[in-house]
């Protein structure tokens, strides 16, 4: 036993252990089943996070919950379903405009969509140009927007950003494109 750990933290230890694969799977299945009526056919489970809130009473124990984050691209909503250890849905929160960080799958999809756009294609194909993500201005209709900045490479060293593309994952199109180089648009 760790003598520096408080009694309150010792009681937390069984609650905060990493969720098993089975627990994760059950949480996702429960969340998707619960929300099925409300989800369009274009949704993605962004990920799962163990969620430990303080108990409502000082001598109480926190609940062990799993937060399942789901983005619905067609309906332009990002939802957090809180699921207990038995797979029961405790609550569903609409995150409104809160921008959960993009997943690697979303970034791949955004890059692929951008590469199909004639304004971006010439940049996407260059070996001396790379794309990295950024957060563009909010969309009033809550579309899931991914910003891609295209910067040059001089050897291994990044150079200036020469273009910005904003990809709308809801409509799967390039919402805007700006070329920073003079005379390009």
């Amino acid at each position: 036993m760790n003598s520096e750990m408080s009694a309150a933290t010792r009681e937390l230890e069984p609650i905060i252990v990493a969720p098993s694969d089975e627990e994760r799977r059950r949480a996702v299945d429960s969340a998707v089943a619960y929300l099925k009526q409300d989800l369009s056919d274009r949704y993605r489970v962004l990920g799962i996070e163990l969620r430990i809130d303080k108990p409502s009473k000082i001598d109480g124990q926190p609940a062990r919950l799993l937060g399942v984050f789901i983005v619905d691209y067609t309906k332009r909503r990002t939802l957090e379903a809180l699921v207990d250890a038995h797979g029961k849905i405790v609550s569903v929160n609409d995150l409104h405009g809160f921008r959960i960080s993009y997943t690697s799958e979303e970034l791949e999809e955004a890059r692929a969509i951008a590469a199909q756009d004639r304004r971006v294609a010439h940049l996407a194909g260059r070996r001396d140009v790379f794309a990295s993500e950024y957060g563009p201005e909010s969309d009033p209709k809550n579309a899931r927007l991914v910003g891609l900045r295209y910067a040059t490479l001089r050897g291994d060293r990044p150079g200036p950003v020469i273009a910005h593309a904003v990809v709308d994952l809801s409509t799967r199109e390039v919402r805007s494109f700006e070329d920073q180089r003079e005379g390009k648009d």
Partner: protein
Amino acid sequence: MFGNYHHVSGAGWSLFWRVPTFNGSGLEIWWADFQGHRVMWRGSAPFAIVPYHHPDTNGEPPPPHFSYKDGLDIHCGGAPFRALRHGAPNSGLPWHSSAFDAADDVDAVVVKVEPADDFNVERLTISAKFQCGWYQYVHSWEFSADGSIHPRVAMGGMLNPNCPTKSHLHDFYFRIDLDIDGQFPHDICEVFDHDKLNDPNGDRWIEITKQMKLLAKSASARKWRVRSTTSKNSAGEFKSYEIELPQLSGLTPFSTGDVWVTVYRGDGIQQGEGVGAADCSDKELEANYAVGPLHPGTTGDDIVLWVVVRAHHEPRTNGEEADHLPYHYEEFSITPRSFARLRPAGASDSR
């Protein structure tokens, strides 16, 4: 795998660290206990606001605000905090290459216990570095055997490639949820000012009676504390932890305060991290979160503080920062008062 809690101990401390599942918010500290007593439920530094001198920024950051919102809930051209593996170079390389991304959280986080020596007490330090666009940020939390906590952040990576000469400010926002001796919700928040050299009454502590934005004031040695209303030390004094914030820069229209006193509203992701969506500023902290009464005269509250560490960066474009940015650290202190019994290293413990 990210998002799991990892236990570490040393220097009289026991705590857990976590790098959340979603790239974005950096290194978190949970359930920090000192000498067997709870000090902090959670500490994190989930976002930064970085306004630039403008308007000639060559599109980075973009008009009309010329200010990034980095970390969680990115806006205004900002980028998330992407965990890098331990040993990733401090240069522009990790911006364009995923080869330096941490495969999992233990790949990113470094835990060190340094023994006491002639000049320092024993220290437990948890650190990780994160890529944020062309910048790198180091999140580092030092827990000392004197009971103090030093949350630190370093800036590294490379200068903005589109406007490498432009000065800017880094405003790092820490969410600090102190639970003095675990007795939530029975804490109060107070502000200290040194007024004059008269003794007594040259210094004063004043209770804060409502959730609000607070400003630093070095002329009066201003600091703040979270004090228990129920838990006392053996001398009968209420236990507390103080926030000492040595600001190196002032406010801007984007970073409008130094400390916000709020109350616990859960550990979900919308507890203040979502500021800046409208105008790249922190104004929502005051408008939406630091709102409502406190109860210092009756029950006390479960106090949560937002604390900003601020640094102005005048680039050394053609000199020391031409290649990369040597890590530059800024920090603040969370210091115990009437909380702990300390003895010199090597002395017998007769608790």
